């Protein structure tokens, strides 16, 4: 095989633009029967693309793009469920700030999007308070119950018993969502706590109309839930079957739990009537979570991590999220390339992005774990030196086989069924929340009498390498890819609030939204709709969503990529702030998402 030179050095990289253009021409010429005439004096396509984007950037509404954001001036809520977005708006209109609205939206999603919205799960919240110009990161990730040990999940042959680890009473971590929301409210909330639960309680009592999407999801979940009568009672019809589209789903037990939380605060969940029910059930069914585990659960405030990208500052979730580090690493690597000269969505651009993804994924989480238990070299990982080393390893003309990369990531499968929502209020305060039950409907287990679905996070500890930073320990939090993210412009003003579900794909998804907006100047709707790619290092495939041009796929294959058409990736819910307007985009990939604004 011919050895291709490496184009990593800065000098050579400058030439690479010309060279890869030449390659494209050669490829094209080779594919054609007749020689082609070069178009006369055509401007560079990348320049034309960029010029078009900036041509009428001053206008509020532009008709030169297929997709348009939802516009508002005084507030915006974007979530994966329209009813929940409306709840957020209701709270803003009632005088609440972004934190109030985010909490209310979070509780509402537990009712309207039960596969991922939750109070029996966990997540991360980035809060930006405009007046203080301060951003804090709340970590309310699930923690391992004291009694849980990895060895308990191994069978006689030492193999993991995946079923027990994924479903039922042994699967859940100690949930963090209620504590997280309460902590956010006690620091920055302005409305009474109980007011924030009111809309969710109403939705649970009155019921929600089951959409085609929810009916489909519940049909798929029925098999797992069928082992727990309390779960069947909570979500299935009297015949035990999944509710039909158009029927009404009421959640009386969940309403009771939320009323308890409304009245007694987080204590109801961790040290009160709900805690009693959780512990009683766990004891009766050989689960792990104890009264002690619940009482000792604490929300952690973390210092957000940042890097600069194209004159913008990207701020995201630090460990125990592994996603934030990955996003910053990728942006740092991409900063080493002349991305502005590559056409958005073209093979040159996607090649560099894919090569970056696989390297960052390979080096992602070996060192990442709960920072209260292990030392995480965050600063080193998001430093420029690591980025330069990775960049210089990338061959602009040729995909590097993944088995040539160091295999360091041994984290298990992560479910794409998480959910993200973004809120911005009229004062410019913003909240980005990503939270999850793990799998769709988590462990499938509803604690009897509470209507609360428990997550299945214990499986997200490392279980193959025992000295891994992410190995299970009492009270420790398992690594997550969830990455709520904020981007600030060169003036330091908040520019973008974003995040996504998608398990291991989350960092790649969020990174592409940032590239599309910050680098390629797309509006937030275009950036959200643009087809995504995903590359990790454990498998050689470069996944592309439908919509990536067949020509681009061909050119990527010529560079050695094993391109496969992939299911859709993620569900970003984002708000962009520009010229005093809030521009929002709900992701079309999962039906039912909506951006709702206030004028």
């Amino acid at each position, binding site marked *: 095989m011919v050895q291709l030179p490496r184009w990593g050095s800065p000098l050579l990289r400058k030439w690479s633009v010309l060279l890869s253009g030449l390659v494209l*021409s050669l490829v*094209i010429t080779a594919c*054609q*029967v*007749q020689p*082609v*005439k070069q178009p006369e004096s*055509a401007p560079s*396509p*990348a320049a034309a*693309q960029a010029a078009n984007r900036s041509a009428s950037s001053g206008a509020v*509404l532009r*008709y*030169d*793009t*297929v*997709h348009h954001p939802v*516009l508002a001036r005084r507030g915006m809520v974007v979530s994966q469920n329209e009813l929940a977005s409306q709840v957020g708006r209701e709270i803003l209109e009632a005088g609440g700030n972004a934190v109030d609205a985010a909490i209310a939206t979070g509780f509402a999603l537990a009712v309207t999007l039960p596969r991922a919205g939750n109070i029996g799960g966990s997540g991360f919240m980035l809060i930006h308070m405009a007046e203080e110009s301060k951003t804090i990161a709340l970590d309310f990730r699930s923690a391992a119950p004291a009694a849980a040990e990895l060895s308990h999940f191994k069978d006689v042959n030492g193999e*993991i018993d*995946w*079923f027990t680890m*994924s*479903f039922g009473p042994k699967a859940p971590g100690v949930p963090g969502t209620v504590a997280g929301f309460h902590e956010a409210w006690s620091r920055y909330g302005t409305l009474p706590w109980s007011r924030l639960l009111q809309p969710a309680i109403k939705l649970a009592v009155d019921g929600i109309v089951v959409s*085609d*999407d929810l009916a*489909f999801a519940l049909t*798929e979940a029925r098999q797992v839930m069928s082992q727990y009568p309390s779960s069947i009672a909570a979500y299935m019809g009297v015949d035990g079957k999944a509710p039909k*589209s*158009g029927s009404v789903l009421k959640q009386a037990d969940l309403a009771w739990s939320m009323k308890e939380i409304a009245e007694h605060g987080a204590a109801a969940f961790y040290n009160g009537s709900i805690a009693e029910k959780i512990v009683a059930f766990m004891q009766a069914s050989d689960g792990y979570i104890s009264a002690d585990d619940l009482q000792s659960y604490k929300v952690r405030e973390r210092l957000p991590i940042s890097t600069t990208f194209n004159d913008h500052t990207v701020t995201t979730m630090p460990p125990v999220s592994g996603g934030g580090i990955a996003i910053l690493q990728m942006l740092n690597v991409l900063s080493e390339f002349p991305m502005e000269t590559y056409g958005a*969505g*073209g*093979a040159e*651009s996607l090649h560099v992005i894919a090569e970056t993804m696989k390297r960052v994924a390979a080096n992602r989480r070996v060192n990442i774990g709960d920072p209260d238990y292990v030392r995480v070299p965050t600063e080193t990982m998001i430093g420029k030196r690591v980025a330069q080393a990775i960049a210089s390893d990338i061959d602009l003309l040729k995909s590097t*086989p993944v*088995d*040539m990369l160091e*295999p360091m990531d041994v984290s*298990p*499968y992560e*479910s*794409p*069924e998480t959910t993200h929502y973004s809120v911005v209020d009229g004062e410019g305060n913003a909240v980005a929340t990503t939270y999850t039950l793990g799998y*769709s409907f988590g462990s499938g287990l509803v604690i009897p009498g509470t209507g609360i679905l428990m997550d299945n996070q214990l499986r997200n500890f490392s279980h193959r390498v025992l000295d891994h930073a992410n190995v299970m320990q009492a009270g420790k939090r398992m690594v997550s890819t969830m990455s709520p993210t904020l981007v600030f412009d060169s003036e330091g003003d908040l520019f973008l609030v974003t995040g996504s579900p998608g398990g291991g794909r989350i960092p790649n998804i969020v990174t592409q939204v940032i590239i599309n907006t910050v680098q390629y100047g797309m509006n937030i709707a*275009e950036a959200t*709709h*643009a087809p995504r790619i995903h590359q990790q290092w454990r498998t050689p495939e470069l996944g592309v*969503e439908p*919509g990536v*041009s*067949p*020509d*681009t*796929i061909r*050119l990527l294959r010529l560079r050695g990529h094993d391109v496969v058409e992939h*299911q*859709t990736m993620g569900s970003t819910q984002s708000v962009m702030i520009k010229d005093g307007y809030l521009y929002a985009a709900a992701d*079309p*990939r999962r*039906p039912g998402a909506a951006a709702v604004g206030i*004028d």
Partner: protein
Amino acid sequence: MPTRPSRSKSVLLAFVSTVLISAHAPSWAEVEKAAQRKKPSSIIRYDTIHHPIVAREAMVVSQRRLASQVGVAILEQGGNAVDAAVAVGYALAVLLPRAGNIGGGGFMMVYLADEDKTIAIDYRETAPRKAHKDLYLNADGTVDRSAYRSGIRSAAVPGTVAGLSHALEKYGTLPLKTVIQPAIDLAAQGFTMDYDTASAILTRESMLKRDPSTAEIFFKADGSPYMAGEPFVQADLAQTLKAIQQGGPRAFYEGKIADQIVQHMERADGLITHSDLANYKAVERTPVEGSYRGHKILSMPPPSSGGVHVVQMLNILENFDLASMGANSADALHLIAESMRHAYADRSRHLGDPDFYQVPIDWISSKSYAKEIADRLSLSQAVPSEQVLPGVAPPYESNDTTHFSVVDKDGNAVSNTYTLNFSFGSGVVIEGAGFIINNEMTDFNAKSGTADAFGLIGGQANSIQPFKRPLSAMTPTLVFKDGKLLLVTGSPGGSRIINTVLQQIVNVIDFKMNIASATHAPRIHHQWQPDKLEVESSLGFDTRVLLQQKGHKVVQSGTMGSLQSIMLQDGLKMGAADPRRPGAGAVGVR
């Protein structure tokens, strides 16, 4: 290529654990994937970015969600697709004042499921009696562009009220009184001004402020614009709609509204007279029929050029295996662009009002003629337009038309495109009547019968004559598969309409896209002259470069069209509203 042993071991380990995972507890992603394999027709699939709105009974898709809801309300009252369509037509006259109208005209395709019959209703505007071929020529023979393009002298006799009543009386089930009521309420009580409408008004501020009768409708008393979020009431329009409610179309063509129109015409040197209005008739025409890879296509015949050329282009493309080239690949788009080039060259020469000019429909839409063109196409090289059979370039056609589609529970369907021509038509609101009159005269060739640059006498087909209907590109279309209705579609977009509808059909039939993906997919446009290939911003970057390499003059343009479509599949109605113009909505029943 050497790999270290430890690495292959780790890969093996990863592989083994993947197998173990699937042996014990399939991930939800795997469950989903398996479910999709088993149930290719399941309603919810996560393998495409865009999803249609799904309903079991009925569907209305229009450029205003509120108007679609009006249509649904009529269906829920027991109305059929035609009743709902007429209600939507009137509602859009209130909610989308730039294109929805009672002062314009359009085309409606009606499919009656019971009789398996399709009717094409032509309610295009007609030239007033006073019009003649040199109407807009200055003394020196040049075109008086200002009179030709806007203002009251550019207005032709409106057809919408007659067309909607024709459809309702012959094919509807509810009285006009009922179906027009929601529009009256929306005009009288007002609707919340949206960013899209506010921005459209501001863009046309100088035109809309030229006449006081127009300015007082679209601006506040102090001349300031309505902001998004503010209520927008149209009291005069409500009165006019009430007059139609009480007097039917006669109120418009012979009664109080006719008086208002003629008074304004006489005062402002317009052309339309009482007798022009009284003589206006909507006409039923035989739809243009074509076939494409086993599907039947029914579309609008002349004076629409749309149906004929959609069929012509599909006939050309049928000679190529587009599916194997890939959706929106340079190879497929090249052939589509070349088909467009040839069709638009023919359009420039042959199309006009069939009541005045013998349009060679059968020849243009024949498989044999298409084969001749297909045989001449190069797979790798664009042919310059000047080498393609010349005609006369058609006049500029505005983007601001609007389309809506309706399917009811019995499978009846309406595909309707109507327009004021330019955004806000002539820019003139008939004084006291609250509605905008069209500038449809602009769609005639203002200068014809003279030798053009190619030495040919062209454009006669579309020259100005009294009572004639100007050439239009509006292309309401129905597609059938195995005798069953598959697709109801149409779009605004001026001359781009035809190509927009073409690509929708190709995306659905060749590339098997769901209706939402087909609607979101980037579009291209070639219209023979000027010789350039317009592409939307979301078209693949590499594809553009490759198209340039094939000799196309690729230009990134604004977005094209605004398709409002319904696809019928597995007993479900799948609706997709086009995202290109904000505010469109598909609303289903059950």
